C-alpha cells in the first residue's frame, strides 16, 4: 500500500463506514415510523358501531364480551349472539347484511385486533374486572368510537403506574411467566 493510495482508500473507507452507519440510522428511523404507523384504529371486516350498541342502546360491555369477567380473554361474541337481534332488527343496513352474509356462508368473522399485549405478558381480564377496573380504563370510551381505536399505550410503565396506585401486585412474576 503506497502512502498516496492509503489516503484515497482511507477517504473511501471512511465514506463507506459513514454510509453503513447512516444506512442503519435510516433503517432505525423507518422502523420507528413503521411502528408509529401500525394502525391504532384498523378497519374491520364489518364496520361494527359501538356507538349504537354500547352508546345509544347502552348494552353493557359484558353482554357481548361475556367472558371478560370469567376468563383471561374477554373474547368477541359468536355470530349467533349477533343474530339473536339481527334475525329481525335493522335488516336493511349494509353492515348487517354483511353480517348475515357471513352467517349464511358459515364463515367466522376475523376481526382486526386493536388491543394486544405481547406474548410474554400474562394478562387476565377476569382479575381486572373483578377488582372493579372500568373497561374504559384500558379501552377508552369505546361507546363513543365509531371505529374502535387504541387510546392507551398498553406499555409496562403504564400498567405498573396503575398497579402502584391501586396496590395491585408489582412482582414481575405476576405478569411475566
Amino acid at each position: 500500500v503506497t502512502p498516496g493510495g492509503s489516503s484515497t482508500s482511507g477517504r473511501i473507507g471512511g465514506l463507506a463506514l459513514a454510509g453503513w452507519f447512516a444506512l442503519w440510522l435510516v433503517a432505525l428511523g423507518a422502523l420507528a415510523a413503521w411502528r408509529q404507523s401500525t394502525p391504532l384504529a384498523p378497519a374491520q371486516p364489518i364496520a361494527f358501531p359501538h356507538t349504537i350498541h354500547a352508546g345509544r342502546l347502552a348494552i353493557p360491555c359484558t353482554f357481548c364480551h361475556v367472558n371478560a369477567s370469567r376468563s383471561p380473554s374477554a373474547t368477541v361474541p359468536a355470530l349467533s349472539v349477533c343474530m339473536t337481534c339481527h334475525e329481525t332488527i335493522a335488516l336493511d343496513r349494509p353492515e348487517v347484511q354483511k353480517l348475515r352474509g357471513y352467517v349464511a356462508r358459515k364463515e367466522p368473522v376475523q376481526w382486526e385486533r386493536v388491543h394486544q399485549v405481547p406474548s410474554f405478558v400474562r394478562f387476565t381480564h377476569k382479575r381486572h374486572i373483578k377488582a372493579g377496573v372500568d373497561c374504559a380504563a384500558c379501552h377508552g370510551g369505546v361507546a363513543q368510537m365509531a371505529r374502535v381505536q387504541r387510546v392507551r399505550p398498553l406499555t409496562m410503565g403504564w400498567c405498573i403506574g396503575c398497579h402502584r396506585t391501586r396496590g395491585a401486585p408489582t412482582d414481575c412474576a405476576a405478569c411475566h411467566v
Partner: protein
Amino acid sequence: MDRRTFLQTLGLLTGSSALSACTPGEERRRLVSALVPPEDGVIPGQSVWHFTTCTECPAGCGMQVRLRDGTPVKSEGVPGHPISGGGLCARGQASLWRLYHPGRLRRPMVREGGTLRETTWDDAFTRIASGLGEARKAGRASVYLSGRTHGALADLLDESAAALGFERAPQFEPFSHAAIRRANGLLFGVPEVPHLDLARPDVLLSVGADLLETFVSPVGFAAQVMAGEGRSWWHAEPHYSLTGANADRRLVLRPGSEPWLLAWLLTRLSPTARRPLPPSVLATVPRPTLAAAAEGTGIGADVLEALAAALASAKDPLVVAGGLGTAGEGALATAGLAGALQWILGATGRTVDFARAEGFGAVGSLLDVRRLGERLARGQVGVLFVARANPVRHAPRDWELARKLSGATLRVGMGDLLDETLREMDLVLPLSHALEAWEELAPRRGLRQLVRPAISPLGDTRAEGDVLLELRRRAGEPVARSYQERLMVSWRARYDDAALRALSAAGYVEEPVSAPPPALDAAAAASLLGAVRLPEVARGPVLVLAPSIRGFDGRSRPLQLMEEIPDPLTTVTYGPWISVAPADAKRLQITDGDELAVSAGGWSAELPARLQPGLAEGVFMVQRDVVASFPGDVDPATGEGTCVLRGPKLARTGRTGRMPWLSGSPSQHGRGLIPDPIHRKKPTEVVSLYAPHAHPEHRWTMAIDVSRCIGCGACAAACYVENNVPATGADEHLRGREMSWLRLEPFYDTAGGVDFLPMLCQQCHYAPCEPVCPVYAAYHNPEGLNVQVYNRCIGTRYCSNNCPYKVRRFNWWDHRVEAPLDRLRNPDLSIRGRGVMEKCTFCVQRITAAKDHAKDEGRPVRDGEVVPACAQSCPTTAIAFGDLNDASSRVASLVKVAGSWRVLEELGTEPSVHYHRGGSSGRKGEP
C-alpha cells in the same frame, strides 16, 4: 487484522445480529368470532379437565387431560384411581406426543408397485370387502390379529368375526405373561394373570418381575410397594433393573437359576405352610438342600435363610415371579413354583386375586404367532388383519414372519405410526388416537373404564370400532351408525342416569366381582411341579434384553419425549447402549462411551458401553425397546421369548459411540449431597451481607422424600409437557445442552445400592444466580421463588455459571417444532426464545392459577391446592409442595422430619427444596 477489516467485520456482525434479532411478527393478529358459542362449560382461555384412560401401555391407568380452547395440552394422573392410584408415568405423559406425532398416519394407504400411496377410506373398504369375498371363494380363512383388546371392542370384534366370516387369532402382546397364565391354569384351572395387591404384604419377594417398569401395572405397583412403612421387599434378578434398584434387598441370581431359589423356598417353607401342598404334590417337587440352592443361585446361604425366615414369620407374605424371571427356558417351572409358594403362604385368594384378574385371558403367545406364520406360509390365509400389534418386531428373526406375511391374499394393517409390521401391509388404515375416539375398556375384571375424545381427529383417521361397523354395513348388515352410538346405547342399557354421570365424571366404574376361591388341582399341580428340573446353571457371560421403562417393548420409542428423558439407571438419553459391569469394563479395557461389537443368537450390533455399578460380572444389558427384531428363542412350553441370551460375543471396536448421558458422575465423591449417615451435622449458621428476604404472604417450599423416589422420570416428563420445555435432540445432548428443568441423579455406593436425587431449581433464599444478573432478570420474589423474567433476560449466562446446582438451562437456539406437535403448548407460560436462560419456578403458572381461584372464592390458598406438575405425576407421591408460612401445611411438618436436609446447604444458599428419607434409612437396592 487491520483497522478496516476490523470495522468491516464489526459492522457486518452488528448488522446481521441486529437483523436476526428482529422477532417474527406477532401471530395473534386477528380475533375470531365463531359462528356459535362453545358448548356449555367451555370458556375460552380457561382449562377444562377431561377424565379418560391412558392407552400408552396395557395397564389402563386413569388419565385426566387438560384441554385449553379445545386442544389437549397436558395429561395427568387421576387421584384415587383403582389402577394407578394417582400418578402417571413418563410414557403416559408422552401419550400427547403420540397424539401430535408429526409422523402419524393421516390417510389410508394402499400398496401399489411396492410402495404405499394414499387412498380413500371408500377404496380401502371396497378392497377389504372384495378381499374377504375372494378368500371365502378360495376356501382360505381370513384372520384378525389384534393387540390386547378388552371391553366393548373385544365384544364387537367377536360379533364382527361371525358376521364377516373371519376368525380371531389369539391377541398379541409382547409382554404376554404367558408362563404365569399357563402355570395358573394348571395349578388352579384359571389361566389368568391375577390382580396383585402389593399394598398389603409385609414381606414381598419378587423374582424377575419388573414391578416398576413394565410388569402389568407399574404405576399402581410403584404406589403400593413404595407406600408401606416397615415392609421388607426382596427382589431377585440376574441383571440390574430399576425394580431391583428400589427393593430393600436386591438378590443377584445366577442367570436362569430362578427354579433353584423357588424350589428351595418351597421345600424350606412347606413344613410351616399355612395351606400345605397335598403330599402327592410335594413328593414330586425337587428338594434342593440349602447348600445346593446357594451354589445354584449364587446367593449366600445366610441370605437365603434370612429370606426364608422373613417369609415364614411374615403376617402377609407374597412371592411374585414374572418379567425376566419367566422369560425363556424354565419359565413354566418358575411360574409354577411361584404359584405353589403363593398357595402355601396363603396369598392365593388374598393378595393374589383371581376374581379381579387382569384381562390377559385372550392374549396368546409367540407360539400362536408361529402357528399363524406357518398357516400363512402354507397359503391357508385369505385376508390378514393386524391391528395395534407389531408381531414382526417381536417374533424371532429366524421365523421370517415378514416374508411369510406375503402368504396372505390381502394384508390389512391398522395403527397410528408406521412400524415394522405395517410396512409389510397391502392396506394401512390409520387409527384414531385414544384422545380422538370413544372406547370402553375393561383392563381388569370388575373395572370398566372410559376412553373419550378430547379433540376431533387430526387426520382422516377412524376408530377401529368404526372400521368394523363400516365393513359390516357394506356387507348389508343393519348396524349402529357409529361406534360411539353403539357404545352410548350399551351404556344406557347397562347404567341408570346416576351411574352414567359417575362414569362420566370419574372415567371409570367399579363393578362387584365374585368368583369361587381358587382350588389347587392336585393332579395337574403334581405333573407341573413334578416336571420341574433344576437347571444346570451355566456360568459365563449372558446378554439380558431388559424391558424398558422408557420405550416399554418398543412401542413408546418413536415418541421423542421418551428419548429426552434419561434412562433412570444410566442417565443415557438418545440412542441404544449396552450396560457393562465395572468388572467387565476393566477386563475389556473400556470406559463410558467406548463402542462394543455385540453378537448373540444371530443378532449383532455395535453399541456404546455404559458402566452400570452393581451389575454382576458377566451380565450385559441391552434395553429391549432398542432391539429392532427379537434375537432370542421361544420357550416351547409357554411361548415366552428368551430374554437372557447365553454366550454373547463382545469385542472392542476401538471407536467411541454417540451416547449422551446426563449424569456427571455415578458417585457423590463423599460430598454428602445425600448425607450419609443421615444425621450428619452441617454448618448451618448463615452469614450474609444482604438482609434476609421477607415473605409476607407465602413462602413456597418443596419437600422430597428420597426414600420414595424410584427414579422413574415421570416428574421430568411432566415438567417437559407442562412448561413447554423444548426437546433438543441427540446432537445438542451430546454437547451437554439438554433443556430438562428437572433431572434425577442416580448416586451409587460402592456396594451397588442407589439413591435418586431429584434435582430442580432449589429456589435459594440467598441465590447465587440473582446478584450476578446484570439486568435483574433473576430475582427473589416475595413468595420465595427465584423468578426468571424471560423477556428481560439478555443471555449473559452469568446466573448459570454461578449456580452450584446446575439447574439453569440456556436456549442456544429457537427450538422449532414440527406441526402438529406445535399444538402441544401450555398457553399459561411463554415459549423462551434463543438467547434466554430458563429454569424451574415451581410451576409459577399453577401458583398463579390457584391464587386466582382462591381469590374468586374469597379465601386464602388451601394447603395442597398448588400441585406442581412433577408432584402431580409422581406415582409414589414423593414430592410435597406447599406454603411454609402456613404452619399447618404438609411441607411445614415435612421440613422438620428428622434427618431432613438441603443439598449443598453448607454454601449458605438456603434452598427452598428440602429432602428427607421419610420413614426408612439406608440406601435401596443393596445386595
